[in-house]
């Protein structure tokens, strides 16, 4: 079966009308499409950067606040400039885009504009018909970033059959984030990225983020929409759907991560989907140098902690949302639980949603200073055993 179609959807800058796009996103994923959702109030540069990194087939833009003729054209032009004109652009705007506007927009390179009254079925059909055929020969990548994005697509779409031909020498520190859904992993990573970006003005980062596929193989890959600091030219972000694999990662994660860790980033951050108690996405001595388990204070009774496998494996345990009432109890209980392990695990309390949170600062120090991985001696990490072996659940 062919790999799912990946599209990126967004609402332009200074426009918060996300009602239509939310409905369309849901309809797309119900029909097997993987949607990287960038959110509302998004500038052209963010949209084009994300589309190239995510290597989507097309960008769908929902615009209601006017200025669409210029905005769509700027997206098309910037894609061309970056050598990514195999990424197509379509969109709509209810009644705000007139037929005359649409004519101009098509002339300037937009594939299709949907008018008010277009059914959701028509839009789904359009995406399947227009962007569903396998890609032909790809144009020569114009940048290292684009080349990386193309290779990630090859790995993902062939389910890891294409091995990474590069040397096994890694040059990035790999940090893994896992934890239950709603614990605030995405926000926490974004806050850490902000600190990384501010600390070293030359450093570059990669983020490999995961969201679950739903039945029918579509997925809503929505982390970018809330990761405001990570939409930056120094951050390469890739969103992956689990495509049927349980355990919080995708069948292609291992190879994608391996490739990213050899691509010159200072740090590679990997985020799993929200995981259950038994999940063990990062194994000891895997490709991940440092594992962070992000917990919500509301995990239930103390007994539940005994069942969380990652508490044994994580290098750092974070109790996020430590402004919640139960946070102090959670801290004490987790601390006791970690003591049983007799390892040098660290426990940090954070409120990731708070600007300049001191807890996030402490976590940042642990991640950026702790020499789990020595950059001057890249081979030190290269011998590590691979990530958890994948078993595709039937």
């Amino acid at each position, binding site marked *: 079966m062919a790999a799912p179609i990946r599209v990126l959807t967004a609402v332009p800058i200074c426009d918060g009308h996300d009602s239509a796009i*939310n409905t369309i996103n849901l309809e797309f994923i119900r029909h097997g499409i993987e949607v990287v959702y960038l959110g509302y109030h998004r500038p052209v540069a963010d949209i084009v950067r994300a589309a190239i990194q995510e290597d989507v087939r097309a960008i769908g833009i929902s615009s209601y606040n006017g200025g669409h003729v210029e905005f769509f054209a700027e997206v098309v032009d910037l894609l061309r400039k970056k050598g990514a004109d195999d990424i197509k652009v379509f969109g709509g705007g209810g009644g705000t885009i007139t037929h005359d506007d649409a004519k101009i927009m098509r002339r300037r390179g937009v594939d299709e504009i949907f008018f008010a009254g277009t059914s959701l079925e028509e839009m789904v059909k359009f995406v399947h018909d227009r962007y569903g055929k396998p890609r032909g020969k790809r144009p020569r990548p114009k940048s290292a970033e684009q080349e990386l994005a193309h290779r990630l697509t090859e790995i993902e779409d062939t389910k890891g059959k294409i091995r990474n031909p590069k040397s096994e020498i890694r040059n990035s520190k790999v940090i893994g984030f896992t934890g239950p859904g709603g614990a605030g992993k995405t926000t926490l990573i974004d806050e850490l990225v902000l600190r990384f970006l501010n600390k070293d003005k030359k450093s570059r980062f990669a983020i490999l983020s995961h969201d679950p596929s739903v039945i029918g193989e579509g997925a809503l890959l929505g982390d970018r929409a809330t990761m405001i600091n990570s939409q930056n030219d120094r951050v390469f972000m890739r969103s992956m759907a689990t495509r049927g694999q349980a355990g919080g990662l995708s069948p292609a994660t291992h190879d994608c991560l391996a490739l990213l860790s050899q691509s010159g980033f200072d740090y590679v951050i990997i985020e799993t989907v929200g995981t259950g108690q038994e999940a063990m996405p990062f194994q000891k001595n895997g490709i991940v140098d440092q594992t962070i388990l992000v917990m919500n204070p509301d995990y239930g009774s103390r007994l539940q902690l005994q069942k969380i496998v990652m508490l044994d494996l994580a290098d750092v345990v974070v109790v996020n949302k430590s402004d919640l009432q139960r946070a102090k109890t959670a801290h004490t209980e987790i601390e006791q639980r970690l003591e049983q392990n007799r390892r040098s695990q660290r426990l940090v309390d954070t409120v990731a949603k708070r600007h300049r949170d001191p807890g996030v600062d402490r976590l940042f120090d642990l991640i950026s200073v702790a020499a789990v991985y020595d950059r001057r001696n890249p081979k030190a990490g290269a011998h590590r055993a691979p990530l958890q072996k994948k078993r595709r659940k039937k």
Partner: protein
Amino acid sequence: MSKLGLVVESVDKHNQFVLDQVKRARTDKDFGRDLVGRWNDIKAKIPTTRTPTGIPLPRLALPEIDEPGEIARYLFSEGLPGEFPYLNGAYREMYLEPIREVESLEKNGHAKNGKAAKKIAPTEEPTRLFSGLMLAEDTNERFHFLTAHQRTHRLSTAFDGPTLYGIDSDADGVFGKIGEGGVAIDTVEDMVRLYDGFDLGSPNFSASMTISGPAPIIMAMYIAAAKRRFGPSVVPKLRGTVQADIFKEVQAQNETIFPIEPSLRFLTDMVEFTSHEMPRWYPISISGYHIGEAGSTPVQQAAYTLSNGFAYAEMFAARGIPVDQFGPRLSFFLDCGLDAEYIALARVSRRIWAIGMRDVFGAGPKAQLYKLHTQTSGRSLIAAEFKNNLTRTAAELVLAYMNATNSCHSNSADEPFTTPSEEWIRLAAHGQAILLEESGIFKHTMNMLSGSPGMKAVERAVETAILEEFREIERLGGVLAAVEERYQRSQIQNAAHRYEQQIYDGTRPIIALNKYRNGSDEDIPEVKLARTPRKKQQLQVDRLVKFKKKNAEKSKRALDKLAAVVESGKNCFPALLDAVEVCSLGQITGRLQEVVGRFRPMV
């Protein structure tokens, strides 16, 4: 328990109180007799007017009841218009024309045309028209056009995208958005141009500004502009409204620029300032409109608007502002669509607000009023065969006035595809005039359409459903906690999705869209669009660059001072007032975001 839980209890208690009074009126003879006496007094004092065709009508219509229990139910559960709990209206008389003499009719047996018994000053038009386009001077011209024939000048201002997001017109990638969908405001100088020629200190003038994320900054610019034109003494005389509703932005409209808590703090700073210095100003318009437009059900709209209102009241009270000082300066804004709930949505809202404010917050009568601006539903209008939108809007207007809204905006039929053009704005305004001035539906008698069994049935169903929403929000830890858990957002999104589904599967008929459709997809009308020319957009950028250059040194100092005050936790509104003199909107937003962070969107 948050105050919202107490509000639920207070409404339940009040409903029990009503039942007790009904029972007592039927069993306690003296009490019953007193009630009947009061009822007869009320009826006797109602003046009579007559219609142009000559029939006499009471100024206030009351149900034909004479049994003490029913009288008790009416007086305690609904109240007369202008009386607690204000179900029938915030004021005793609304929309009514001056009384026409009745005696002359009785003496002569036929009507004498149009002779009023006594000269009553004409009441204010409740019509409001929302407007904003291109640059400040263009909107100013539109304002003068709109108010040319009005006694009162009530201006309702729409801002363009960059302004709504606190961004300057010279920021990257916003050029095409300048002046689109509203007026472009970057500096205090734009604000001076925007209201040029209007007497800002006059009781006949008020300005409403539809902006929330950067509301305190825009508000400071308005005050600064007024001071530049009329001197500092104008400040306490300023009348108007700034929307400033952070909760609904986070729940529905997505125009938030700072994280929720600092946004609420800046809002409270502004409310504290206006409560003391600008007693005639409405510093917040608690808005359900955008919740409705984002796709909520009518009940969700009413419930979230009310609960947001109670959360603000709790915050302002916690800041130490007396409830009788801020309470009368809160106003509300609802959407009115075509669903059955709209028959009584605002009526029920008014009742719940009054009970909650009185019994939970200890508010006096003026702070119990749910003062309401209504706008007809934009979402209900469609592009296909768009002239039908006139009918939709007309029906919605009837519903809005049946709910005794204090003011109303009627949408232009061409809104689904463009910024409204003058032709359709005129028709929208005339729709209101036809309803209020030409037809006899609202101008002779208060309660003309109130109190039908159907309306009562809707009231009961809506009130129950609103209280159930309150309980759910309370279970989640109150409004702020529920917002952070994105409860309201996901409820609204679900409702929006269902609405779309219903349109596509035909269970929600939209005439000329999924029913009685005539013609092809190509029937979108050819209209002249009010687009902002590139030359104007460039002019706005040039002016801004000049302003920044002129104030380069001063703006740096003002921003440093502002940042220091924000860090200190003191009320930052006075520092904002200084900053807008020399800084642009984007400069201030940017500096504040450095201190308090940026809003992280919820999806």
